[in-house]
């Protein structure tokens, strides 16, 4: 899995990531050997049902795993530097500067007690030696950048005075504050209603073209990701099922799970994060079956599936973890 694919050195190179939680005397493994890369200015979609480990993967990359969670194994190379095991002080110099994150619940991701402008300024001043006034001025410009009409006024608003969409614009502005090379968006539109979703996606799309930021877009909704990203990583049960160029994967999904995901996206738009077209439920991380995690729900399941399939590289550059290939 170290075979170099993309020509240029990737911004992010996640290798065999294992993220687990201690519980009592036991350990629950949630992310179980995830690898993917994000090239410079690339956009990668991380897709899976809730419980697939995609959000935790994003948080691991962001360096936000706290006790009792821990990264058991693997490397997270950001511009070639491994974030795993990096001292907290050093890590915090990277967080918000080289990589930033937009969270699921825009309103909750803002501290209700401070003006939003102050919260953006805080992100700026964490990495830049500027005065509060200058930081606020930068914040106003960022607000304009993300399409906030009355930026000067919104600066002095509290989160509860703003709509969910507006809050998400604010958090995006916050994430862009230090022009990071990589932006992780964790279900940025799930909590918003449909029209606002579209607006936010427009903002993100536009920013992508204007700034040269690489993007990791985490979502349960493959249709959203398909619109936003060039590459796709499909996760299930804490593992990568399939990955590759968006058009290839969407055009001819190989893994039965990917097929199911795409099928359900066609039948139900938006959704609950649960797949109506695939029978059964996402397995409990403590009761994860040996071998392929999808096997219990897979219509193509065979005895071989009891042992974990390797991530096979297909000729078109895709990878698939299934004994069918």
């Amino acid at each position: 899995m170290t075979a170099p694919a993309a020509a240029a050195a990737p911004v992010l190179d996640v290798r065999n990531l294992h993220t687990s939680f201690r519980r009592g005397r036991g350990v629950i493994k949630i992310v179980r050997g995830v690898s993917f890369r994000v090239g410079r200015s690339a956009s990668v979609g991380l897709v899976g049902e809730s419980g697939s480990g995609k959000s935790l993967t994003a948080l691991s990359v962001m360096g936000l795993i706290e006790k009792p969670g821990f990264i058991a194994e693997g490397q997270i190379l950001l511009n070639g530097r491994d974030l795993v095991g990096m001292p907290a002080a050093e890590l915090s110099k990277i967080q918000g500067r080289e990589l930033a994150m937009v969270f699921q619940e825009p309103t909750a991701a803002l501290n209700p007690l401070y003006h939003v402008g102050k919260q953006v300024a805080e992100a700026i001043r964490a990495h830049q030696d500027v005065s509060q006034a200058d930081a606020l001025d930068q914040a106003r410009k960022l607000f304009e950048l993300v399409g906030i009409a009355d930026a000067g006024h919104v600066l002095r608003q509290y989160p509860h005075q703003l709509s969910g969409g507006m809050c998400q614009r604010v958090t995006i502005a916050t994430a862009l504050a230090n022009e990071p090379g990589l932006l992780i968006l964790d279900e940025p539109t799930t909590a918003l209603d449909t029209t606002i979703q579209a607006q936010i996606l427009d903002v993100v799309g536009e920013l992508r073209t204007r700034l040269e930021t690489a993007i990791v877009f985490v979502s349960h909704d493959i249709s959203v990701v398909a619109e936003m990203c060039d590459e796709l990583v499909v996760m299930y049960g804490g593992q990568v099922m399939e990955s590759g160029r968006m058009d290839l994967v969407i055009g001819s999904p190989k893994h039965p799970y990917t097929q199911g995901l795409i099928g359900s996206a066609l039948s139900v738009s938006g959704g609950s994060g649960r797949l109506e077209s695939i029978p059964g439920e996402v397995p409990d991380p403590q009761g994860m079956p040996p071998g392929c995690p999808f096997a219990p729900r897979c219509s193509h399941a065979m005895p071989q599936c009891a042992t974990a399939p390797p991530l096979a590289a297909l000729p078109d550059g895709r990878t698939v973890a299934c004994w069918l290939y």
Partner: protein
Amino acid sequence: MDEPLLAGGALPLEVAVVALPDDKPATRRSQLLRQKNFLAGVVLLCIVIIPVLLGPVVSSVGPDVQNPALSFLPPSLGHLMGTDQYGRSIWARVVYGGRYTIGASLAVVVLGGIAGTALGLVAGYLRGTVGFIIMRAVDLLLAFPGILLALGVTAILGPSLVNAVIAVAIVAVPLYARIVEGAAREVANLPYVRAAKALGSGPGHIIWRHILPGALPGIIVQTTVYLGIAALWIASLGFLGLGVQPPTPEWGQMVSDGQASLSIAWWAVVFPGAFLAAFVVGVSLIGDALRDRLNPTGAGT
């Protein structure tokens, strides 16, 4: 990642687990942790209650038997907790005294619980003017600090154990009423209850079969929480001379008795107080565990 947590992280366990399809592990874990508390509570309570229940079996002398020759003996094998000024066995008095303190606290939660539950059910089921009046009265009683209300009631009724029980039970009434009213209000709105009403079930049937079971977890939690408070307050009133009257060996009253000879016989003060504290800690531990189990929305510890 191994350094101690100072600031909160993105995904402390609870959040991570919420994101999982099934949050059984969380409950299971807290059950496991709580189980320890629960067990500790049960053990403490047993240590306190078993001798109290056994009474004469564990104490060969009665609580009021005086013997000047045995005055102020320190704790020893012959006199487990020593003796007081009058040669009375502190062990015997603690063991018999528990019946008053614990018995009175139980009476408090039964009386206060029944009265408060009844009021809460009526208010929650009937709503309207009656419910409004009941709940405003409840708010008013809650505006008084608990022990102050109990003291006020004692002032009216006069000092005695029965009156102390009534006083502390009155403090409990609004607490129960509020919890039960909330639950009743919620349940009364559920479709199947409305359906039952439409089908002609009487209010008694609906309250008994539908509303009360819904309120039950809250009532149970409130009872364990209040039982400890009741014991503290009953003993406090006893200590102040507003509850049990001497020579009845209630724990608070015993502390009051013993303080006159504190520097000669610490044991006459320390043991009854320690038994009281152990009882209250035991009840609180169990109450916490029950609250976590029965009331998952509660803030926990």
